[in-house]
Protein backbone atom coordinates (compact mmCIF):
# COMPACT_ATOMS: atom_id res chain seq x y z
CA UNK A 1 0.00 0.00 0.00
CA UNK A 2 2.78 2.43 0.95
CA UNK A 3 4.53 1.66 -2.30
CA UNK A 4 1.43 2.64 -4.26
CA UNK A 5 0.98 5.89 -2.36
CA UNK A 6 4.56 7.02 -2.80
CA UNK A 7 4.85 5.94 -6.41
CA UNK A 8 1.65 7.86 -7.16
CA UNK A 9 3.21 10.92 -5.52
CA UNK A 10 6.34 10.41 -7.61
CA UNK A 11 4.37 10.25 -10.85
CA UNK A 12 2.34 13.36 -10.05
CA UNK A 13 5.29 15.42 -8.88
CA UNK A 14 7.51 14.41 -11.80
CA UNK A 15 4.72 15.49 -14.12
CA UNK A 16 4.65 18.78 -12.25
CA UNK A 17 8.39 19.16 -12.90
CA UNK A 18 7.61 19.40 -16.59
CA UNK A 19 4.27 21.16 -16.40
CA UNK A 20 4.77 23.91 -13.80
CA UNK A 21 5.27 27.38 -15.24
CA UNK A 22 7.83 28.62 -12.77
CA UNK A 23 11.23 26.91 -13.23
CA UNK A 24 11.95 27.26 -9.50
CA UNK A 25 8.83 25.25 -8.76
CA UNK A 26 10.03 22.66 -11.27
CA UNK A 27 13.26 22.18 -9.33
CA UNK A 28 11.41 22.01 -6.02
CA UNK A 29 9.08 19.36 -7.44
CA UNK A 30 12.16 17.50 -8.64
CA UNK A 31 13.47 17.56 -5.08
CA UNK A 32 10.12 16.27 -3.85
CA UNK A 33 10.31 13.44 -6.41
CA UNK A 34 13.78 12.46 -5.20
CA UNK A 35 12.62 12.45 -1.59
CA UNK A 36 9.72 10.13 -2.39
CA UNK A 37 12.00 7.88 -4.43
CA UNK A 38 14.27 7.58 -1.43
CA UNK A 39 11.25 6.62 0.70
CA UNK A 40 10.53 3.83 -1.79
CA UNK A 41 14.13 2.66 -1.40
CA UNK A 42 13.59 2.67 2.37
CA UNK A 43 10.43 0.58 2.04
CA UNK A 44 12.32 -2.00 0.00
CA UNK A 45 15.05 -2.20 2.69
CA UNK A 46 17.69 -0.41 0.61
CA UNK A 47 18.56 2.17 3.26
CA UNK A 48 22.05 2.86 1.89
CA UNK A 49 20.68 3.76 -1.53
CA UNK A 50 17.97 5.91 0.05
CA UNK A 51 20.50 7.98 1.98
CA UNK A 52 22.87 8.22 -1.00
CA UNK A 53 20.04 9.45 -3.18
CA UNK A 54 19.28 12.25 -0.73
CA UNK A 55 22.91 13.21 -0.15
CA UNK A 56 23.97 13.20 -3.81
CA UNK A 57 20.91 14.27 -5.73
CA UNK A 58 18.95 16.39 -3.28
CA UNK A 59 21.87 17.75 -1.27
CA UNK A 60 24.20 18.54 -4.15
CA UNK A 61 22.80 18.24 -7.66
CA UNK A 62 19.37 19.79 -7.12
CA UNK A 63 20.85 22.61 -5.04
CA UNK A 64 23.06 23.54 -7.98
CA UNK A 65 20.05 23.37 -10.30
CA UNK A 66 18.19 25.67 -7.95
CA UNK A 67 21.15 28.05 -7.90
CA UNK A 68 21.27 28.30 -11.65
CA UNK A 69 17.51 28.57 -12.11
CA UNK A 70 17.18 31.28 -9.47
CA UNK A 71 20.02 33.40 -10.79
CA UNK A 72 19.24 33.19 -14.47
CA UNK A 73 16.17 35.16 -15.38
CA UNK A 74 14.52 32.39 -17.36
CA UNK A 75 11.52 33.24 -19.48
CA UNK A 76 9.29 30.22 -19.02
CA UNK A 77 7.13 30.86 -22.09
CA UNK A 78 10.23 30.83 -24.28
CA UNK A 79 11.16 27.39 -22.97
CA UNK A 80 7.68 26.10 -23.69
CA UNK A 81 8.05 27.11 -27.35
CA UNK A 82 10.74 24.48 -27.84
CA UNK A 83 8.57 21.74 -26.41
CA UNK A 84 7.48 20.27 -29.73
CA UNK A 85 10.98 20.51 -31.14
CA UNK A 86 12.44 18.38 -28.36
CA UNK A 87 9.51 15.99 -28.06
CA UNK A 88 10.75 13.32 -30.53
CA UNK A 89 14.14 13.20 -28.85
CA UNK A 90 12.50 12.89 -25.44
CA UNK A 91 10.30 10.06 -26.63
CA UNK A 92 13.34 8.33 -28.08
CA UNK A 93 15.25 8.62 -24.79
CA UNK A 94 12.27 7.27 -22.86
CA UNK A 95 11.99 4.29 -25.22
CA UNK A 96 15.70 3.49 -24.85
CA UNK A 97 15.37 3.68 -21.07
CA UNK A 98 12.29 1.45 -20.98
CA UNK A 99 14.04 -1.00 -23.31
CA UNK A 100 17.06 -1.14 -20.99
CA UNK A 101 14.82 -1.81 -18.01
CA UNK A 102 13.09 -4.57 -19.97
CA UNK A 103 16.40 -6.19 -20.84
CA UNK A 104 17.48 -6.09 -17.20
CA UNK A 105 14.31 -7.65 -15.83
CA UNK A 106 13.14 -9.87 -18.70
CA UNK A 107 16.38 -10.25 -20.65
CA UNK A 108 16.61 -14.03 -20.38
CA UNK A 109 13.47 -14.58 -22.40
CA UNK A 110 15.06 -12.54 -25.20
CA UNK A 111 18.29 -14.49 -25.08
CA UNK A 112 20.45 -11.88 -23.32
CA UNK A 113 22.85 -13.07 -20.66
CA UNK A 114 22.16 -11.02 -17.57
CA UNK A 115 24.49 -11.15 -14.58
CA UNK A 116 22.75 -12.68 -11.61
CA UNK A 117 23.21 -11.40 -8.11
CA UNK A 118 21.87 -13.82 -5.56
CA UNK A 119 20.28 -11.44 -3.09
CA UNK A 120 19.16 -14.20 -0.74
CA UNK A 121 22.68 -15.53 -0.38
CA UNK A 122 24.08 -12.04 0.09
CA UNK A 123 22.01 -11.30 3.15
CA UNK A 124 22.26 -14.79 4.62
CA UNK A 125 25.90 -14.14 5.43
CA UNK A 126 24.78 -11.39 7.79
CA UNK A 127 25.95 -8.67 5.41
CA UNK A 128 24.37 -5.29 5.79
CA UNK A 129 22.99 -3.42 2.82
CA UNK A 130 26.06 -1.18 2.65
CA UNK A 131 28.51 -4.05 2.72
CA UNK A 132 26.59 -5.96 0.06
CA UNK A 133 26.73 -3.02 -2.35
CA UNK A 134 30.40 -2.49 -1.64
CA UNK A 135 31.20 -6.16 -2.23
CA UNK A 136 29.74 -6.04 -5.72
CA UNK A 137 30.66 -2.51 -6.71
CA UNK A 138 34.34 -2.82 -5.87
CA UNK A 139 34.88 -6.36 -7.16
CA UNK A 140 32.72 -7.56 -10.08
CA UNK A 141 31.74 -4.14 -11.40
CA UNK A 142 34.89 -2.24 -10.55
CA UNK A 143 35.77 -1.28 -14.14
CA UNK A 144 32.27 0.01 -14.90
CA UNK A 145 32.29 1.94 -11.64
CA UNK A 146 35.60 3.59 -12.50
CA UNK A 147 34.47 4.33 -16.03
CA UNK A 148 31.38 6.16 -14.83
CA UNK A 149 33.66 8.23 -12.59
CA UNK A 150 35.74 9.14 -15.66
CA UNK A 151 32.60 10.18 -17.53
CA UNK A 152 31.85 12.60 -14.69
CA UNK A 153 35.43 13.86 -14.75
CA UNK A 154 35.20 14.55 -18.48
CA UNK A 155 31.94 16.43 -17.95
CA UNK A 156 33.57 18.50 -15.21
CA UNK A 157 36.59 19.37 -17.34
CA UNK A 158 34.27 20.28 -20.22
CA UNK A 159 32.29 22.64 -18.02
CA UNK A 160 35.46 24.29 -16.74
CA UNK A 161 36.84 24.73 -20.26
CA UNK A 162 33.57 26.30 -21.43
CA UNK A 163 33.40 28.70 -18.50
CA UNK A 164 37.11 29.52 -18.31
CA UNK A 165 38.06 33.11 -18.82
CA UNK A 166 41.43 34.67 -19.21
CA UNK A 167 42.69 35.41 -15.73
CA UNK A 168 44.74 38.47 -16.77
CA UNK A 169 41.75 40.68 -17.40
CA UNK A 170 40.28 39.98 -13.95
CA UNK A 171 41.46 41.94 -10.97
CA UNK A 172 41.59 39.54 -8.05
CA UNK A 173 43.46 39.35 -4.77
CA UNK A 174 46.39 37.01 -4.44
CA UNK A 175 46.00 35.60 -0.95
CA UNK A 176 49.62 34.42 -0.73
CA UNK A 177 50.95 37.90 -1.43
CA UNK A 178 48.45 39.36 1.02
CA UNK A 179 49.48 37.01 3.78
CA UNK A 180 53.21 37.40 3.29
CA UNK A 181 53.16 41.18 3.25
CA UNK A 182 55.21 42.78 6.01
CA UNK A 183 54.94 46.11 7.73
CA UNK A 184 58.16 47.37 6.13
CA UNK A 185 56.75 46.82 2.65
CA UNK A 186 53.86 49.16 3.17
CA UNK A 187 55.01 51.79 5.66
CA UNK A 188 58.18 53.77 5.27
CA UNK A 189 59.26 56.00 8.12
CA UNK A 190 60.88 59.20 6.98
CA UNK A 191 62.69 61.48 9.34
CA UNK A 192 61.21 64.84 8.50
CA UNK A 193 63.67 66.98 10.51
CA UNK A 194 66.84 65.58 8.94
CA UNK A 195 65.98 66.09 5.31
Amino acid at each position, binding site marked *: MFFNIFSAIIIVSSLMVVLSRNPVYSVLFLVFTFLNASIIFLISNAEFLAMTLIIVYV*GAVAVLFL*FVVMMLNINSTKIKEGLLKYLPFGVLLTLVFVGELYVIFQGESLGFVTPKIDIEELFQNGNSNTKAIGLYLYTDYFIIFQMSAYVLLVAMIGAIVLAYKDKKSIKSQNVFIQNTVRKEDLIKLVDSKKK
Partner: protein
Amino acid sequence: MFIENNLVMESLIDVLKILAIILPLLIFIAYLTYFERKVIGFMQLRKGPNVVGPFGLFQPFADGIKLLTKETIVPSNSNKFLFILSPIITFTLALIAWAVIPIDNDIVLSNINVGIMYIVAVSSLSVYGIIMAGWASNSRYAFLGSLRSAAQMISYEVSIGLIIINILITVGSLNLSEIVLAQKNVWYFLPHFPMFIVFFISTLAETNRAPFDLPEAEAELVAGYNVEYSSLSFGLFFLGEYGNMILMSSMTTILFLGGWLPPVDNEIFNLIPGFVWFFLKVSFLLFLFLWIRATLPRFRYDQLMRLGWKVFLPLSLFWVIITSSYVYFNNGNF
Protein backbone atom coordinates in the same frame (compact mmCIF):
# COMPACT_ATOMS: atom_id res chain seq x y z
CA MET B 1 -8.42 -5.97 19.48
CA PHE B 2 -5.41 -6.85 21.59
CA ILE B 3 -3.04 -6.24 18.69
CA GLU B 4 -4.61 -2.86 17.98
CA ASN B 5 -4.21 -1.86 21.63
CA ASN B 6 -0.59 -2.92 21.47
CA LEU B 7 -0.03 -0.79 18.40
CA VAL B 8 -1.61 2.24 20.07
CA MET B 9 0.52 1.72 23.16
CA GLU B 10 3.67 1.39 21.08
CA SER B 11 3.05 4.55 19.13
CA LEU B 12 2.17 6.36 22.37
CA ILE B 13 5.49 5.27 23.86
CA ASP B 14 7.25 6.42 20.70
CA VAL B 15 5.63 9.85 20.97
CA LEU B 16 6.71 10.08 24.62
CA LYS B 17 10.26 9.11 23.64
CA ILE B 18 10.31 11.80 20.95
CA LEU B 19 9.06 14.38 23.46
CA ALA B 20 11.70 13.22 25.95
CA ILE B 21 14.34 14.15 23.36
CA ILE B 22 12.79 17.30 21.90
CA LEU B 23 11.75 19.09 25.11
CA PRO B 24 15.20 19.01 26.78
CA LEU B 25 16.67 19.95 23.41
CA LEU B 26 14.44 23.02 23.13
CA ILE B 27 15.35 24.06 26.68
CA PHE B 28 19.01 23.51 25.80
CA ILE B 29 18.59 25.72 22.72
CA ALA B 30 16.90 28.43 24.81
CA TYR B 31 19.67 28.38 27.38
CA LEU B 32 22.33 28.28 24.69
CA THR B 33 21.23 31.79 23.69
CA TYR B 34 21.44 32.88 27.34
CA PHE B 35 24.82 31.17 27.69
CA GLU B 36 26.06 32.89 24.53
CA ARG B 37 25.07 36.33 25.76
CA LYS B 38 26.57 35.71 29.20
CA VAL B 39 29.86 34.26 27.92
CA ILE B 40 30.41 36.94 25.30
CA GLY B 41 29.40 39.54 27.92
CA PHE B 42 32.04 38.31 30.33
CA MET B 43 34.65 38.14 27.57
CA GLN B 44 33.94 41.78 26.74
CA LEU B 45 33.89 42.83 30.44
CA ARG B 46 30.13 43.30 30.47
CA LYS B 47 27.58 41.58 32.66
CA GLY B 48 25.30 40.14 30.00
CA PRO B 49 21.58 39.63 30.73
CA ASN B 50 21.03 39.99 34.51
CA VAL B 51 17.63 41.63 34.97
CA VAL B 52 14.95 39.00 34.27
CA GLY B 53 15.01 36.52 37.16
CA PRO B 54 18.06 35.55 39.27
CA PHE B 55 21.24 36.12 37.19
CA GLY B 56 18.93 36.80 34.24
CA LEU B 57 18.04 33.11 34.07
CA PHE B 58 14.53 33.77 32.73
CA GLN B 59 15.83 35.92 29.89
CA PRO B 60 15.35 33.23 27.17
CA PHE B 61 11.67 32.89 28.11
CA ALA B 62 11.18 36.65 28.10
CA ASP B 63 12.80 36.78 24.64
CA GLY B 64 10.62 33.93 23.45
CA ILE B 65 7.38 35.50 24.66
CA LYS B 66 8.35 38.81 23.10
CA LEU B 67 9.11 37.11 19.79
CA LEU B 68 5.85 35.16 19.75
CA THR B 69 3.61 38.11 20.54
CA LYS B 70 4.96 40.27 17.71
CA GLU B 71 3.04 40.58 14.50
CA THR B 72 3.99 38.21 11.68
CA ILE B 73 4.67 40.27 8.59
CA VAL B 74 4.53 38.58 5.20
CA PRO B 75 5.80 40.87 2.44
CA SER B 76 3.11 41.42 -0.18
CA ASN B 77 5.46 40.68 -3.10
CA SER B 78 6.81 37.50 -1.59
CA ASN B 79 5.97 33.98 -2.59
CA LYS B 80 3.79 33.32 0.44
CA PHE B 81 3.73 29.54 0.43
CA LEU B 82 7.51 29.13 0.25
CA PHE B 83 8.01 32.14 2.53
CA ILE B 84 6.15 30.40 5.34
CA LEU B 85 7.37 26.90 4.48
CA SER B 86 11.11 27.62 4.64
CA PRO B 87 11.46 28.46 8.37
CA ILE B 88 9.35 25.40 9.15
CA ILE B 89 11.70 23.24 7.04
CA THR B 90 14.78 24.71 8.72
CA PHE B 91 13.44 24.10 12.21
CA THR B 92 12.11 20.60 11.47
CA LEU B 93 15.38 19.48 9.91
CA ALA B 94 17.28 20.74 12.95
CA LEU B 95 15.13 18.49 15.13
CA ILE B 96 14.69 15.25 13.12
CA ALA B 97 18.40 14.50 13.00
CA TRP B 98 18.20 13.83 16.74
CA ALA B 99 16.34 10.58 16.03
CA VAL B 100 19.63 8.77 15.52
CA ILE B 101 21.98 10.54 17.96
CA PRO B 102 22.97 8.18 20.79
CA ILE B 103 23.24 10.21 23.99
CA ASP B 104 24.11 7.18 26.10
CA ASN B 105 24.64 3.46 25.71
CA ASP B 106 21.30 2.28 24.22
CA ILE B 107 19.59 5.63 24.83
CA VAL B 108 18.74 6.45 21.22
CA LEU B 109 15.40 6.78 19.50
CA SER B 110 16.21 4.61 16.50
CA ASN B 111 19.50 2.78 16.21
CA ILE B 112 19.62 2.49 12.40
CA ASN B 113 22.68 1.02 10.70
CA VAL B 114 23.21 3.99 8.35
CA GLY B 115 22.98 6.54 11.18
CA ILE B 116 25.84 8.75 10.06
CA MET B 117 24.53 8.92 6.50
CA TYR B 118 21.12 9.88 7.84
CA ILE B 119 22.67 12.85 9.62
CA VAL B 120 24.65 13.90 6.54
CA ALA B 121 21.48 13.63 4.46
CA VAL B 122 19.48 15.75 6.88
CA SER B 123 22.17 18.39 7.13
CA SER B 124 22.45 18.53 3.34
CA LEU B 125 18.70 19.09 3.15
CA SER B 126 18.88 22.08 5.48
CA VAL B 127 20.33 24.17 2.64
CA TYR B 128 16.84 24.25 1.15
CA GLY B 129 15.27 26.16 4.04
CA ILE B 130 17.79 28.95 3.59
CA ILE B 131 17.83 29.11 -0.21
CA MET B 132 14.02 29.05 -0.39
CA ALA B 133 13.75 31.77 2.25
CA GLY B 134 16.06 34.00 0.27
CA TRP B 135 14.21 33.46 -2.99
CA ALA B 136 10.69 33.67 -1.57
CA SER B 137 11.38 36.96 0.23
CA ASN B 138 11.73 38.69 -3.13
CA SER B 139 14.38 41.00 -1.72
CA ARG B 140 17.89 41.50 -3.01
CA TYR B 141 19.60 41.45 0.36
CA ALA B 142 17.84 38.27 1.40
CA PHE B 143 18.59 36.62 -1.94
CA LEU B 144 22.30 37.51 -1.88
CA GLY B 145 22.52 36.33 1.72
CA SER B 146 20.90 33.03 0.92
CA LEU B 147 23.14 32.43 -2.11
CA ARG B 148 26.22 33.06 0.00
CA SER B 149 24.95 30.87 2.77
CA ALA B 150 24.02 28.01 0.45
CA ALA B 151 27.35 28.12 -1.42
CA GLN B 152 29.17 28.11 1.88
CA MET B 153 27.21 25.17 3.27
CA ILE B 154 27.67 23.06 0.12
CA SER B 155 31.41 23.78 -0.02
CA TYR B 156 32.07 22.73 3.52
CA GLU B 157 29.81 19.69 3.33
CA VAL B 158 32.31 18.19 0.88
CA SER B 159 35.18 18.18 3.36
CA ILE B 160 32.86 17.12 6.18
CA GLY B 161 31.85 14.11 4.07
CA LEU B 162 35.48 13.16 3.43
CA ILE B 163 36.35 13.46 7.12
CA ILE B 164 33.42 11.22 8.01
CA ILE B 165 34.79 8.68 5.51
CA ASN B 166 38.04 8.65 7.53
CA ILE B 167 36.13 7.75 10.66
CA LEU B 168 34.08 5.12 8.81
CA ILE B 169 37.23 3.45 7.49
CA THR B 170 38.69 3.26 10.97
CA VAL B 171 35.48 1.96 12.58
CA GLY B 172 34.11 -0.16 9.74
CA SER B 173 30.51 0.72 10.50
CA LEU B 174 27.96 3.43 9.72
CA ASN B 175 26.16 2.97 13.02
CA LEU B 176 26.68 5.85 15.44
CA SER B 177 26.66 3.68 18.58
CA GLU B 178 29.32 1.42 17.09
CA ILE B 179 31.40 4.46 16.18
CA VAL B 180 31.32 5.55 19.82
CA LEU B 181 32.03 2.06 21.19
CA ALA B 182 35.02 1.70 18.85
CA GLN B 183 36.62 4.64 20.70
CA LYS B 184 36.80 2.70 23.96
CA ASN B 185 40.61 2.60 23.87
CA VAL B 186 41.42 5.93 22.29
CA TRP B 187 39.19 8.82 21.25
CA TYR B 188 39.63 9.51 17.58
CA PHE B 189 40.65 13.12 18.01
CA LEU B 190 44.14 11.82 18.90
CA PRO B 191 44.92 9.63 15.85
CA HIS B 192 42.91 11.92 13.56
CA PHE B 193 43.97 15.19 15.17
CA PRO B 194 44.32 17.27 11.96
CA MET B 195 40.92 16.04 10.84
CA PHE B 196 39.43 16.98 14.21
CA ILE B 197 40.56 20.56 13.70
CA VAL B 198 39.37 20.65 10.08
CA PHE B 199 36.03 19.13 11.07
CA PHE B 200 35.51 21.66 13.84
CA ILE B 201 36.25 24.58 11.53
CA SER B 202 33.96 23.07 8.89
CA THR B 203 31.12 22.80 11.41
CA LEU B 204 31.59 26.50 12.15
CA ALA B 205 31.16 27.21 8.44
CA GLU B 206 28.32 24.71 8.07
CA THR B 207 26.30 26.36 10.84
CA ASN B 208 27.09 29.86 9.51
CA ARG B 209 28.75 30.88 12.74
CA ALA B 210 31.52 33.42 13.30
CA PRO B 211 34.11 33.80 11.83
CA PHE B 212 32.19 32.43 8.83
CA ASP B 213 28.90 34.27 9.50
CA LEU B 214 29.01 35.94 6.07
CA PRO B 215 25.33 35.35 5.34
CA GLU B 216 24.49 37.77 8.10
CA ALA B 217 27.30 40.22 7.52
CA GLU B 218 25.39 43.17 8.96
CA ALA B 219 27.54 45.78 7.33
CA GLU B 220 26.98 44.62 3.76
CA LEU B 221 23.89 42.43 3.66
CA VAL B 222 21.70 43.88 6.45
CA ALA B 223 21.04 40.46 7.99
CA GLY B 224 21.24 37.89 5.23
CA TYR B 225 18.51 35.49 4.21
CA ASN B 226 16.22 36.30 7.13
CA VAL B 227 15.85 40.08 6.67
CA GLU B 228 12.19 39.91 5.76
CA TYR B 229 11.22 37.54 8.54
CA SER B 230 9.58 38.60 11.76
CA SER B 231 8.01 37.13 14.84
CA LEU B 232 7.57 33.35 14.92
CA SER B 233 8.94 32.76 11.44
CA PHE B 234 12.17 34.49 12.45
CA GLY B 235 12.09 32.60 15.74
CA LEU B 236 12.02 29.27 13.90
CA PHE B 237 15.11 30.24 11.87
CA PHE B 238 16.83 31.31 15.05
CA LEU B 239 15.95 28.09 16.90
CA GLY B 240 16.96 26.07 13.84
CA GLU B 241 20.37 27.75 13.70
CA TYR B 242 21.08 27.11 17.36
CA GLY B 243 19.68 23.58 17.08
CA ASN B 244 22.12 22.97 14.23
CA MET B 245 24.97 24.23 16.41
CA ILE B 246 24.09 21.68 19.08
CA LEU B 247 23.64 18.97 16.45
CA MET B 248 27.03 19.65 14.86
CA SER B 249 28.70 19.70 18.28
CA SER B 250 27.16 16.33 19.13
CA MET B 251 28.37 14.99 15.81
CA THR B 252 31.90 16.14 16.64
CA THR B 253 31.50 14.54 20.06
CA ILE B 254 30.39 11.23 18.58
CA LEU B 255 32.98 11.11 15.82
CA PHE B 256 36.02 12.42 17.68
CA LEU B 257 35.43 12.80 21.42
CA GLY B 258 34.10 9.34 22.28
CA GLY B 259 30.40 10.20 22.68
CA TRP B 260 29.12 9.16 26.08
CA LEU B 261 32.38 7.41 27.11
CA PRO B 262 34.24 8.84 30.12
CA PRO B 263 37.77 10.12 29.42
CA VAL B 264 39.43 7.33 31.42
CA ASP B 265 37.82 3.96 32.04
CA ASN B 266 38.00 3.89 35.85
CA GLU B 267 35.43 3.39 38.60
CA ILE B 268 34.94 6.98 39.68
CA PHE B 269 34.36 8.22 36.14
CA ASN B 270 32.05 5.29 35.39
CA LEU B 271 29.80 6.35 38.30
CA ILE B 272 28.80 9.43 36.32
CA PRO B 273 26.13 8.43 33.78
CA GLY B 274 27.07 8.54 30.11
CA PHE B 275 24.67 11.26 29.04
CA VAL B 276 26.31 13.65 31.52
CA TRP B 277 29.66 13.10 29.78
CA PHE B 278 27.94 13.61 26.45
CA PHE B 279 26.37 16.84 27.69
CA LEU B 280 29.69 18.08 29.08
CA LYS B 281 31.53 17.40 25.82
CA VAL B 282 28.84 19.08 23.73
CA SER B 283 28.83 22.07 26.08
CA PHE B 284 32.61 22.36 25.82
CA LEU B 285 32.42 22.44 22.02
CA LEU B 286 29.61 25.01 22.16
CA PHE B 287 31.75 27.12 24.47
CA LEU B 288 34.47 26.98 21.81
CA PHE B 289 31.89 28.22 19.27
CA LEU B 290 31.10 31.22 21.47
CA TRP B 291 34.73 31.85 22.34
CA ILE B 292 35.61 31.97 18.65
CA ARG B 293 32.72 34.34 17.99
CA ALA B 294 33.96 36.72 20.66
CA THR B 295 37.57 36.53 19.44
CA LEU B 296 37.92 36.33 15.68
CA PRO B 297 37.00 38.86 13.00
CA ARG B 298 34.89 37.80 10.03
CA PHE B 299 36.42 36.06 6.99
CA ARG B 300 36.28 37.66 3.58
CA TYR B 301 34.15 35.68 1.13
CA ASP B 302 36.93 34.67 -1.28
CA GLN B 303 39.08 33.61 1.68
CA LEU B 304 36.25 31.43 2.91
CA MET B 305 35.85 29.67 -0.44
CA ARG B 306 39.61 29.30 -0.82
CA LEU B 307 39.87 27.72 2.63
CA GLY B 308 37.10 25.26 1.86
CA TRP B 309 38.08 24.14 -1.63
CA LYS B 310 41.83 24.67 -1.81
CA VAL B 311 42.93 23.82 1.72
CA PHE B 312 40.41 21.60 3.49
CA LEU B 313 39.36 19.46 0.53
CA PRO B 314 42.89 18.36 -0.51
CA LEU B 315 43.88 17.93 3.12
CA SER B 316 40.97 15.66 3.98
CA LEU B 317 41.36 13.73 0.70
CA PHE B 318 45.03 13.18 1.55
CA TRP B 319 44.07 11.99 5.00
CA VAL B 320 41.58 9.50 3.52
CA ILE B 321 44.45 8.00 1.50
CA ILE B 322 46.66 7.80 4.60
CA THR B 323 43.94 6.24 6.73
CA SER B 324 42.88 3.69 4.14
CA SER B 325 46.49 2.70 3.40
CA TYR B 326 47.14 2.25 7.11
CA VAL B 327 44.03 0.11 7.54
CA TYR B 328 44.88 -1.88 4.38
CA PHE B 329 48.43 -2.71 5.42
CA ASN B 330 47.28 -3.42 8.97
CA ASN B 331 44.97 -6.19 7.73
CA GLY B 332 41.79 -4.22 8.18
CA ASN B 333 42.42 -3.23 11.79
CA PHE B 334 43.03 0.21 13.12
